């Protein structure tokens, strides 16, 4: 019997066969992992914490892979990651650390009258500044903005990921974008990209 035949027999046995489930899961996860890790990093704003969060999300997802409905894998993974983050965030909130705003149903215009024209503001920004401004948006609003504008999830998917009604997602998005724009404007003023009278 040749070596190839022996290997074939070994590969065919239960102990030596590479799991098809893991193969499929790894293929799918590898494609969306930069998004997953990016979201984790933008939520936690700490590389080590983001790495732990992303790994935990991958493990949880692998264990629950049989329950994946086969529709949108990225949304499903982001849902697991966001849920994990929210649970941790809630623990921190209980411990008295919170950066969320109380009245999240208050919508405000993103571009109120008399503010800097958008083109002047946005054209001068670079990636690090945008990330910095995004990091200053309170967690709940940042999560909604990230999932919608960076990762392209639908309102329904964001509602599932964050365990809130769609109405809350809508108001969080509006509020989050308004805060983000203010932060970007403030940053541009500090850096001298724009002047107050612009």
């Amino acid at each position, binding site marked *: 019997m040749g070596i190839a035949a022996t290997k074939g027999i070994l590969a065919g046995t239960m102990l030596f066969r590479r799991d098809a489930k893991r193969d499929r899961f790894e293929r799918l996860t590898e494609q969306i*992992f930069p998004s997953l*890790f990016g979201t984790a990093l933008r939520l936690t704003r700490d590389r080590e914490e983001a*790495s732990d969060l992303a790994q935990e999300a991958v493990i949880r997802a692998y*264990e629950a892979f049989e329950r994946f409905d086969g529709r949108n894998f990225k949304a499903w993974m982001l849902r697991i990651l966001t849920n994990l983050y929210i649970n941790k965030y809630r623990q921190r909130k209980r411990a008295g650390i919170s950066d969320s705003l109380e009245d999240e149903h208050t919508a405000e215009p993103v*571009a109120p009258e008399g503010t800097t024209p958008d083109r002047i503001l946005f054209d001068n920004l670079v990636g690090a500044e*945008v990330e910095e401004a995004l990091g200053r948006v309170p967690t709940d609003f940042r999560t909604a903005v990230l999932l919608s*504008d960076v990762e392209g999830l639908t309102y329904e998917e964001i509602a599932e990921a964050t365990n809130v009604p769609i109405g809350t997602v809508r108001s969080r998005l*509006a509020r989050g974008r308004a805060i983000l724009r203010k932060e970007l404007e403030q940053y541009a003023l500090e850096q001298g990209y724009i002047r107050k009278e612009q």
Partner: protein
Amino acid sequence: MSEFLDVHALADNEADASTAKAVEEAMQRNPQLRSEFDSILLIKQTLQGHCKGVHCEETWSACQDRLAQIERSDRVTGFVSKYSWQLCGSFVVLVLFAGLWTRSTNQSRSLDPSQVPTIAGFSPMSSSTADEFGFRKYLSEWQLQGIFRTNVDGRAVWRYDMVDGRGPFQIFVTPNVNHIEGACRREVQGLNCYSWVHKGAQFIVVADRDHAELEQIAQRINGMP
């Protein structure tokens, strides 16, 4: 407030047809709403353009390692739970085989004469029924004083306490031995002993005599029918 939220919904492609139409009309009437819509689109573009992918090879590699560990553990757990009865059965069979092999190996191995003084636990036997080798019958010139039996490493060992004109001597017999390991003539604790194999059994004769006399005893025994 609702109008603003509808503008966001339109920018996000989440508004249904009637809402979208109503918002479009409202934006034509209200430049502030149009400006809001443009601003939302610019924020979305900015975020998509600036929030680039993050270097994550190390974390992905760590994830793969953890997945491999989980898979290995799942495979072993699955294999053990699926074949638990077979594994237990194989283990029992293995133990039985090992026992039988050890037993058969020990049984065919000869007794080392140096072991003789350390053999303990001899039980006296009734000399009329236990004289398997016929010493009483064929060697009537020797006086048989007692027959004892014990087990050494799972093997039966008989001891015959004899007396002849020269004094006492002992014969140890171990059945099922075909060859002897080591020398035939030995001295153990000040006594000479002579060991040999005859008719599938090992004999050791021990006495305070020289080896030539012990050999004569051996020849006498070998001469038995």
